[in-house]
């Protein structure tokens, strides 16, 4: 007998992939609240996450508190039969009742006033509440390595943003690539920052929207510079697909509701260790670059 659990919700593409053909793969990596599976055919990574994690591209949410209880191990076989996703003989996940989720970004507003105010507010809030050590400077670096990392992140993000705001896309690509794989954590800070930044370029009607191919160009060059898990998120972000908490945050940046803004920003800041802060700063910087590129003082 294996454990049976329901999938609560899942990303639209992943769902299609599972329902469409005979999906096979293996477990790529396993954590307390998530595990990743790699598809045999495409090599793409998919994530199975517990209830407390938000929806994300290529991710299924399972009705459980944690995923470590099933002793899922790396290289466990994964296959689909009859709308059930099997992980070896350990776990059977019922896909049929899953609610479909799709990553949809709102369009860039025609009137930037609220956005401008909210972006400023968010930056202040992140300065107070965000976690240092990545894009946000650490007040007390643990060691010279950390200090150097912060310094390099700061220089490179600055160069990237300057070039982006001045429409020097080729230079921007170069600096963006130099961020990939830089920094502490499973998803290096540089990657998280780019994920946030990419998001803003995919908001329709945004001043930098026409340059969104920038993202894919960066990602293409970055493949060998970071690990599979982080690359997978970056790749999705480069086509405008990001996790639910980021989308909620973007949505609340467009309206006048401070409570929403605090809640949704806190959700983002809670991701990983410094990842959330890096993501949020990437987003804020991206929006600032958009506002600048649109000709408004920021």
């Amino acid at each position, binding site marked *: 007998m294996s454990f049976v659990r329901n999938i609560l919700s899942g990303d639209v593409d992943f769902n299609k992939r599972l329902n469409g053909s005979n999906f096979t793969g293996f477990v790529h990596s396993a*954590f307390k609240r998530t595990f990743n599976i790699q598809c045999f055919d495409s090599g793409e990574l998919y994530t199975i996450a517990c209830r407390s994690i938000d929806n994300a591209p290529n991710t299924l949410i399972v009705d459980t508190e944690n995923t470590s209880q099933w002793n899922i191990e790396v290289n466990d076989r994964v296959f689909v039969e009859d709308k059930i996703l099997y992980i070896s003989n350990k776990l059977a996940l019922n896909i049929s009742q899953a609610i479909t989720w799709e990553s949809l970004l709102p369009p860039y507003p025609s009137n930037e006033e609220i956005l401008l105010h909210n972006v400023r507010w968010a930056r202040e*809030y992140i300065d107070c509440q965000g976690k240092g050590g990545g894009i946000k400077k650490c007040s007390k670096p643990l060691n010279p390595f950390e200090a150097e990392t912060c310094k*390099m992140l700061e220089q490179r993000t600055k160069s990237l943003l300057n070039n982006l705001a001045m429409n020097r896309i080729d230079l921007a690509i170069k600096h963006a690539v130099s961020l990939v794989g830089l920094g502490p*954590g*499973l998803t290096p800070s540089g990657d998280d920052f780019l994920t946030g930044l990419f998001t803003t370029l995919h908001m329709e009607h945004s001043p930098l929207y026409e340059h969104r191919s920038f993202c894919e160009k960066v990602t293409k060059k970055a493949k060998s510079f970071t690990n599979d898990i982080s690359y997978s998120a970056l790749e999705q972000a480069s086509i405008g697909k990001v996790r639910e908490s980021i989308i909620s945050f973007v949505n609340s940046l467009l309206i006048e509701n401070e409570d929403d803004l*605090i809640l949704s920003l806190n959700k983002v800041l809670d991701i990983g260790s410094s990842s959330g802060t890096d993501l949020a700063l990437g987003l804020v910087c991206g929006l600032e670059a958009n506002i600048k590129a649109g000709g408004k003082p920021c």
Partner: protein
Amino acid sequence: MLVQALIKPNTYFDSVSLMSLSTKANQIDGVEQAIIAMGTEMNKEVMKNVGLLTPEVEAAGTSDLIIVVKAETDELCETAFSKINDLFTKKDSGKKGKSDVKYSTISAAAENNQDANLAIIAVNGAYAAREARKALENDLHVMMFSDNVSIEDEIQLKNLAHEKGLLMMGPDCGTAIIGNTALCFANAVRKGNIGIVAASGTGSQEVSVRIHEFGGGISQLIGTGGRDMKEEVGGIMMLDGIQALEDDEETKVIVLVSKPPASSVEEKVLAKIKLCKKPVVVWFVGGDEEKITAAGAHFAKMSKEAALKAVLLAGADESKLNKRALNIPLIEEVRTKLTAEQKYIRGLFSGGTLADEAMHAAMEKFDNVYSNIQRNPEFRLKDRYTSQEHTFIDFGDDEYTQGKPHPMIDPSTRLERFIQEAKDPSVGVIVMDFVLGYGAHEDPVGAFLPAIIEAKQQAEQEGRHLEIIGYVLGTELDPQDYDEQINKLLAADVTHASSMQNAGLLAREFVVKGE
């Protein structure tokens, strides 16, 4: 120094675990530096920059976990690696002892833990009274942090506690120190022989840190909740608190802190003081000196004065105390910097009693002092977003928190207002408190620093001097770094006041014109 590396191929740990591992690895004895990171090209570049690149690191792939240790000797490196390996293999489970048993009700927790003696209730006000009642029925003393509890419930709970001989601190009680343990929002202070009963949280925090600074210590600090001294409640907890301190062997001096009580309650309290054998110092913000001295108590007009009287009564040698007198030359200097238009004080406070004290200091010299906590409705702020002449705001008041955490935890609302006030050319001085201690923000000054620096620069460009007084309420024993907080203020050219009393008086004196 030796640099050694260990590569774990294709190993993924979530970021939170990596961070905590990294922090712990750097704390291992004998380790100069320890780094745990994914082996990306960029991370390798960083290691190269700081001289930590070994051939093994260079060969590592993007999916490999790199552990690099820098230490004096081979041996130290080896031990460090084995300790780091232990950290990796240590699982969460296996330590679930009895202490991890979960309880859902106060009764179950109390029945299974006979030593439990106090309940802290910090739930939505709609449910708080019920939980407090359960606690009292289980013979637990209660500290009720929740507010929005009806006054009927408060009276009933306090009567029940009184009958059972238990403490009923609150509702809306944020500060207490019992058995040298700070509860909710309180500062880490020395143990000593001065007992405090307080109907105001930050007022009692202020008195306790001043006593600590004068070299004295606190036996117990009992909070009563803000409504205890109202007519309806009748000071039940205040009276029981005084009695308990009177009976406490360790307490030599009693200090009472409150806003002015209802007159019937004041009578009861003063009658109680008359019966006390121990000296009692009374600081009722804006209280009546005559009545209080007639009762045989020691009257204090302000917080520092209350603390000073208490430590002297407790046996301190006055000649050895640094009373931190007002800096008169500084007052002269600031006055010359301010223009004639810069007339007004703007006090932005996270602590209610702190706001009250500063406001009362100003009211002694000015008759145009407005606030959201003014007792005279004529001087209440018409619009909470707009200041009028001299304005003092308690940001802990409900109308400013609006569902957000208290300003001692979440600085955002006050920060916004600060930026606004700093732009007003009629402002002579902005005075603010930064409260440290348990429960409070981990870096309250740091949260304001960028805004302060920017505001000062802005004012300078406009050709005016922006005077800011900052007061850090805390002790060197608090979980935050007290000295660092003050240094941050000084570095930003903020005038640091040594007490709330001084902060209030300095603010007032800075804007006095033509004296």
